[in-house]
C-alpha cells in the first residue's frame, strides 16, 4: 500500500484550564490518536459532543497545534513547514465548515468569496479566475449569476454548495469537512452529500468527514473511526464497523440511533 495522504501519529491535545495563577491540570481533548487516510479514500470520524472529533480535524487543518504527536500531509509534517512550503500545503488542504451562515464574510459577494483563494495564491489572470468561478459554480449545480449575490441571500443548501466550490477551487488533494450538512433539511442534505461524493470522485480527493450523525457517516465513509472522550475506541472499514461493531461504545451508539426493526430490512 502506498504512503497515506494524511497520517496522524500519536496526537494529543491538552487545553490549559484555569487562570494565570491557578493552574488546573488541563483538559485532554484528544488523547493519543493515530489514524491514516489513503489516497482517494474517505475517513469518517463519528462521536458525540465533547469526543474531540472537531479538535482533531482542526489540528489536521493546522488551526490548532497538537500538544504531542505528528501530523503528516503528503509525507510532510505540517507544523515543521514554513514560508512557501506552508503556503503550498495550505493549498493542498481545504476545509468545509458546519455552519454555512458563519463560513463566509457577510459583506462579500459570492464572486469575491470564491476569488479570494485564487488571489492569495496568485493563480490566473482576472479573466481566468472569472472563467474558473463560472465553471465551478455550474459544476456545483448553481446558476453562475449567483456570483453577484451576498451570502445571506442564499439558502443553506446553496451556501454549502458554495463552501464545496471554495474548498476545491485551488485543486486541493485533501478536503476536511466538519458536519457540513448538520444544519440542513434532509432533502437538501441528500443533495449536498450527493454533490460531495461526485466532486470527491471528479477531483480525486482524499477526505476526512466529521459528524455526529451515524447514518451520514455510513453513507460517505470508506473507513470509520469512532471517538469518545478524546480517544479513538474503534476504527476500521465502514461496513465492518456498522455490521460487526467490536467495541461496547460503538454498539451503544448504533443501538441508540432511532430506527425500528422494520427499517432495517428496507
Amino acid at each position, binding site marked *: 500500500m502506498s504512503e497515506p495522504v494524511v497520517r496522524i501519529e500519536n496526537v494529543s491535545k491538552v487545553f490549559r484550564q484555569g487562570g494565570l495563577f491557578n493552574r488546573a491540570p488541563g483538559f485532554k481533548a484528544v488523547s493519543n490518536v493515530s489514524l491514516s487516510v489513503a489516497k482517494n479514500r474517505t475517513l469518517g470520524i463519528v462521536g458525540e459532543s465533547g469526543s474531540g472529533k472537531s479538535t482533531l480535524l482542526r489540528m489536521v487543518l493546522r488551526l490548532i497545534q497538537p500538544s504531542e504527536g505528528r501530523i503528516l500531509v503528503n509525507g510532510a509534517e505540517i507544523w515543521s513547514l514554513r514560508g512557501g512550503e506552508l503556503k503550498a500545503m495550505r493549498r493542498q488542504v481545504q476545509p468545509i465548515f458546519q455552519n454555512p451562515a458563519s463560513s463566509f464574510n457577510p459583506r462579500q459577494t459570492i464572486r469575491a468569496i470564491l476569488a479570494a483563494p485564487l488571489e492569495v495564491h496568485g493563480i490566473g489572470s482576472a479573466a481566468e479566475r472569472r472563467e474558473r468561478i463560472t465553471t465551478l459554480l455550474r459544476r456545483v449545480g448553481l446558476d453562475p449569476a449567483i456570483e453577484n449575490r451576498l451570502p445571506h441571500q442564499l439558502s443553506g443548501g446553496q451556501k454549502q454548495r458554495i463552501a464545496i466550490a471554495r474548498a476545491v477551487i485551488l485543486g486541493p488533494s485533501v478536503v476536511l469537512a466538519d458536519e457540513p450538512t448538520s444544519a440542513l*433539511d434532509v432533502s437538501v442534505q*441528500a443533495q449536498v452529500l450527493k454533490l460531495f461524493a461526485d466532486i470527491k470522485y471528479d477531483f480525486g480527493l482524499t477526505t476526512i468527514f466529521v459528524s455526529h450523525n*451515524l447514518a451520514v457517516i455510513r453513507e460517505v465513509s470508506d473507513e470509520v473511526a469512532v471517538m469518545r472522550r478524546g480517544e479513538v475506541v474503534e476504527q476500521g472499514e465502514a461496513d465492518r464497523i456498522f455490521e460487526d461493531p467490536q467495541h461496547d461504545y460503538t454498539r451503544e451508539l448504533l443501538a441508540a440511533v*432511532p*430506527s425500528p426493526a422494520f427499517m432495517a430490512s*428496507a
Partner: protein
Amino acid sequence: MREYRPHAQGAARPALAIRELTVDFQRRSGLLRTVDKVSLDVWPKEIVGVIGESGSGKTMTALSAMRLLPHGAKIGGAIALGGRDLVNIGESEMRALRGDRIALIPQDAMQSLNPTMRVGRQVGEPYEFHRKQSYGAIWSKVVELLRAVKIADPETRVRDYPHQFSGGMQQRAMIAMGLALDPELIIADEPTTALDVTVQARILKLLRDIRDERGSAILFITHELGIVAELCDWVYVMKDGKVVEDGPVKRIFEAPKADYTRMLLEATPSIHRRKGAKR
C-alpha cells in the same frame, strides 16, 4: 377507506382535535399562510408524530394548540382539547389550562430555563401557579418528579441551578415540569434535537414510559424520520403548511402514499443500508 387507529377505539373523543387550522401573518407583500387547513387528532394515550422540514408549519401547528403563536399571527379554524374550544377563549382561561391540562416541552431546554432560579423552584412552578400550594408541599413533589424523570440523587439536585445540569438533565427537568399536573396532552417540539444520540435514546424511552404509566397523549414534532418510526403510533407528514398524508407509522414507512413522503424516506440516510451516493 379509513385506516385502523387503535387508540381511537373505545375513546369518547380525541385528547386534541384540530380542524381546518390556518395561521396567517400579515406581511408587507400580503398575507403569509404558514399553516393551511390542517386537521389533526391526538387520541388519549396515543403518541402522534408531526414530521416536516423547516417551513412546513409543524411548529406553528404545535404553538397554535398552546396558544403561544408569535405576535401578529392570525389563527383560523378550530382546536379542541378534550372537547373544549381553545381558539375563542380568553387569555386568562388559556393560562389556566397551560401547564395544567396541556403542557409544552420545548426544543432548547437551556434557553427555556431561568438561569437565576434553582431547578426545583422552576419545576415546581405549575403547583405554585395552578394549585397555590405551600413550598414545603411542593418541594417533596418536585423531588418525586425529578425521580420520575430519572435524575439521580433528586434530593440534592433539586437545589442546583440549570447550568449545573447536563443538556440531557435540563431536558429531563423540562419534561418533569410538563408532567407536574398530569396533563392529558403533552406537546413536545423537537425536544431531542440538541442532544447526543445516546442521551436522545434515553429521553425517547422516558416519553414512552410516561405515556404507558401516566396515560398522557403526546404530540411529537420532529424533522427526523427515525424518531417517528421508533416512538410514534400515528404520523402526520407536513409540507408547506399542509398535511400531505397521515397514517399508522408502519404503513407510512412501508407504503407511503404521498410523493413527498417517499422523497423524505429516500433522502434520509440510514445506518442499516448504503445508498448509491458513493462511486
